[in-house]
């Protein structure tokens, strides 16, 4: 199996993992940022920004990791090279997802200080004060 085939197979697996993550976040990312930003166009912008960051961050980690670990070395067994590329892709996905989650968490906490959402229930629901 040539280096090009290993690189192609690894890239295809990373692209599949990336597509799965973007698909899982597709329906929830935009509404969350619309809620945090207050305006639909601002939320759409930041959601798109997060998607770009996820893709770019993952690909960057794959490229750097493949160069560092010698995944595309001709002496590396083909399957080991493909698995190595996939693992670097998963590391990149995890880091990028962490960055997006940290940004969303920071702004959720900031919004919660100014405009807490209406809580309908909970493990400790607000109790009516006792009558004097």
């Amino acid at each position, binding site marked *: 199996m040539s280096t090009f085939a290993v690189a192609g197979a690894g890239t295809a697996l990373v692209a599949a993992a990336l597509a799965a993550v973007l698909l899982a976040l597709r329906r929830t990312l935009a509404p969350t940022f619309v*809620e945090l930003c207050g305006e639909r166009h601002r939320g759409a912008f930041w959601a798109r920004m997060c998607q770009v960051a996820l893709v770019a961050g993952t690909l960057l980690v794959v490229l750097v990791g493949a160069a560092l670990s010698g995944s595309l070395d001709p002496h590396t067994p083909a399957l*080991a090279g493909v698995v190595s590329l996939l693992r670097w892709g998963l*590391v990149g996905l995890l880091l990028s997802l962490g960055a997006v989650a940290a940004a969303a968490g920071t702004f959720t906490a900031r919004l919660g200080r100014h405009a807490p959402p*209406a809580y309908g229930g*909970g493990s400790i629901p607000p109790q009516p004060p006792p009558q004097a």
Partner: protein
Amino acid sequence: MQPILALTAAGLVALLATAGTVLLLRPHLQRLLDEVCGTHARAGFWVAVSLLTIGICGLLAGTATYGYPSAPDASAQDVFLGGVTQLRLLLVGLLGSVLAVAWGLVQAIRSFERRADARAYYQAMQAQTPPPSAPPASGTPTQA
């Protein structure tokens, strides 16, 4: 036994175990985060992030090639032990990611309960009735 075959077989087991964990946790996590986050959009986002974290960590740990022998003429026992090491790392990764998500949930629930206490206190102040307790300060337990 070829190390590549063992790696593939253990990788498939890792995939199944990770998918099972995610499917098992999903409905319960959704209900809990719906309650804690307050809005459906936020809950959906955090459910997706939590489950993706568990899934990625499980796959990452479950595809580790750490325990396999590098010599091409390795015995079947060495290859088998390499597979066992791979599955052991899978369990460590899954357990670690589930514990990390659980720790985040506990923090979110504590914050939620502080907000609920504070809201009850200020509602009582607005209604000019005796408050149920002092407003909760961060890190100090409330007096009954």
